[in-house]
């Protein structure tokens, strides 16, 4: 079967051939059955039908003869009797015909013996009849003569019965033969019918098997491979093929294609995997700025479900803060410029939570150069922002007390001096140095010392206005910038307040710590119009106050430069 069944053409031909063989078998058997039928009918026509008519003929002829005798007897016409006598030969010939058939036929129900007997009977009758009716004598029949005639009548009746029986038997034989033929043709019909059905089913089954083996199985192997391919699974190498096997070639070509594609392209699954696992939130926009595709990261970042996001205008993701670098125009410009990189944007989640993000976008074109969409990537920069803020704080604020550090203070002072010069206002610098702080540090610990410094910072902030700046200059030194004083004397009053407030005991862990502070005051513009001068003056004044015993103030205007 394998010699030429590899091409589709030969496979189909094979199926057709099987069907044709089935058809041929059915036709041949029906042909054979018809010939048989023809033979049976021919036999009926040639043998049985003439025979049946022979029986009838026999009866009719005897009737003719007896009618002749009857007429002769009734009217006494001798010539009629002579005519009737002549019929004898005809009847004997008919009987001999039947006898011949009976001798030659195996299936005839008649027995030769019976026919011979009835032939003899007829001969007796005919001889007697010839004798009696030749001289019928119409009148004065003697009683003996009457008896003879009566005997003859009875014999004639018996003969008629015998002939009728022969005729009936021949009729029955014909009918039986017809019945037999009918039955035979019926059973042939049934046989043929079942043969047809069987052949039909068998051919159907074989064709189905063959088609399944030769066509369906190889095709379903290809289909399976296509399914695998569509699911991103590895395809299975098809079995070796013959040159003429088109399906095999197709399977092989497809498999080779998948193998080639494996090398030259990446599967969607692979890309999806990349997208799913990339750190940034990926959003692909349609040209009309509605969301077409999102990555898992996007869903998590914005707290939307994927279904909710798809089709939304991407504007809903932005909070549009004042200092945002992103705007609708900016996004639209991506289309023109091709790409934007790491723009800072304020984004808003589904719940309204706002967070900073870096936005990058680039437009995507197909081979024909038409805009297909915009690929956007969001990176949450909350952490970055926090770190940035912390850095800034570290640069301008004292980490322990949260007060401004020297750097910020110098900036503020610089600003304030410029401001005061412009508006002719008075500024004051209070330079503070804690008294009796070192013993606390020594006696307790630096932790306690730190807590004390924080408390001091807090008290200083409470005592000053928002305009004023309190800064820690390092160690236990602080500086206070009093902005826009009405008069220089205000500075001393605030300094007094500070001294008083600092002197109040500081409660830490059940222990009270008592400190003092020495304050040096310098006034702008009275003690200098530069930052450096003012600080130096205040510092010097503070030293004077310390010299004076601490917990007091000293005004730079009283410094003796001698």
């Amino acid at each position, binding site marked *: 079967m394998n010699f030429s069944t590899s091409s589709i053409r030969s496979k189909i031909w094979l199926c057709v051939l099987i069907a044709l063989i089935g058809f041929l078998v059915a036709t041949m058997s029906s042909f054979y059955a018809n010939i048989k039928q023809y033979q049976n009918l021919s036999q009926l026509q040639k043998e049985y039908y003439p025979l049946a008519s022979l029986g009838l003929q026999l009866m009719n002829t005897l009737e003719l003869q007896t009618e002749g*005798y*009857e007429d002769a*007897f*009734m*009217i006494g016409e001798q010539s009629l009797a002579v005519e009737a006598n002549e019929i004898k030969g005809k009847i004997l010939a008919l009987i001999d015909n039947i006898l011949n058939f009976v001798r030659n036929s195996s299936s005839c129900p008649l027995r030769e013996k019976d026919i011979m007997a009835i032939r003899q009977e007829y001969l007796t009758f005919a001889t007697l009849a010839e004798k009696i009716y030749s001289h019928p004598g119409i009148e004065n*029949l003697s*009683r003996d003569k*009457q*008896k003879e*005639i*009566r*005997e*003859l*009548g*009875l*014999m*004639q*009746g018996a003969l008629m019965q015998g002939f009728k029986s022969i005729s009936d038997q021949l009729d029955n034989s014909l009918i039986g033969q017809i019945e037999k033929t009918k039955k035979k043709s019926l059973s042939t019909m049934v046989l043929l019918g079942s043969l047809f059905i069987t052949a039909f089913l068998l051919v159907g089954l074989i064709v189905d098997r063959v088609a399944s083996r030769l066509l369906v199985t190889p095709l379903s192997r290809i289909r399976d491979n296509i399914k695998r391919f569509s699911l991103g699974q590895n395809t299975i190498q098809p079995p070796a093929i013959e040159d003429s096997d088109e399906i095999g070639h197709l399977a092989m070509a497809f498999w080779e294609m998948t193998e080639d594609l494996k090398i030259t392209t990446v599967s969607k699954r692979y890309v999806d995997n990349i997208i799913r696992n990339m750190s940034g939130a990926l959003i692909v926009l349609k040209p009309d700025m509605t969301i077409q595709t999102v990555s898992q990261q996007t869903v998590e970042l914005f707290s939307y479900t994927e279904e909710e996001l798809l089709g939304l205008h991407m504007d809903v993701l932005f909070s549009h803060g004042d200092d945002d670098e992103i705007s609708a125009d900016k996004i639209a410009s991506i289309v023109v410029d091709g790409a934007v990189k790491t723009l800072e944007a304020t984004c808003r989640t589904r719940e309204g939570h706002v967070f900073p993000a870096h936005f990058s976008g680039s437009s995507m074109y197909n081979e024909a150069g038409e805009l297909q969409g915009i690929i956007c990537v969001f990176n949450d920069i909350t952490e970055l922002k926090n770190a940035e803020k912390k850095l800034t704080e570290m640069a301008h604020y004292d980490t322990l007390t949260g007060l401004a550090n020297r750097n910020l203070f110098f900036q503020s002072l610089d600003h304030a001096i410029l401001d005061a010069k412009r508006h002719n206002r008075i500024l004051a610098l209070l330079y503070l140095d804690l008294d009796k702080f070192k013993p606390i540090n020594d006696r307790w610990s630096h932790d306690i010392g730190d807590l004390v410094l924080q408390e001091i910072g807090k008290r200083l902030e409470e005592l000053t206005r928002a305009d004023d700046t309190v800064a820690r200059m390092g160690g236990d030194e602080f500086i206070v910038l009093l902005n826009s004083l009405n008069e220089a004397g205000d500075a001393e009053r605030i300094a007094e307040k500070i001294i008083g407030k600092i002197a109040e005991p500081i409660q830490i862990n059940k222990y009270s710590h008592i400190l003092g502070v020495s304050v040096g005051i310098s006034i702008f513009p009275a003690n200098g119009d530069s930052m450096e001068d003012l600080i130096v003056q205040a510092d010097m004044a503070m030293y004077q106050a310390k010299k004076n015993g601490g917990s007091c103030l000293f005004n730079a205007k009283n410094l003796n430069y001698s």
Partner: protein
Amino acid sequence: MQKSTVLIVSFLLLLTTCLVASGKEYVLVCHKECPVDQLTHREVERIFLGKMRKWPDGSGIEIVVNSNEEVHALFTRDMLNKSPSQFSNYWRRILFSGKNILPVNVKSDVDAQSYLLEHTNALSYINVTNLNSTVKKILVVE
């Protein structure tokens, strides 16, 4: 054959006319010891056509055809609705077919009565004027 039939028929017609004219009638007679006194017209017909062959007691009926011209044609016409030749042919056909032999034939009323005397089962008919005590008259009822 036709000629002779015509002759016979015309002869019989003439005879009947003569009989009726002379007021002669037939009477059905049998042996004195015959168990039957009367018969229906239909029974008579059946008996003389050979279809009823036994008396009610089981003894056979022997019919005697009286060919006395005075009564024979009258009887066959009246009882059997046949001409004498039809009647004769009827019986010849019976004989021919072997069913029966011909009935006894007598020439005169005297012969009939003498035959009846000797045969107890016999049945015949004679001119009513010749009826005497040697035989028994059977009444024909409808």
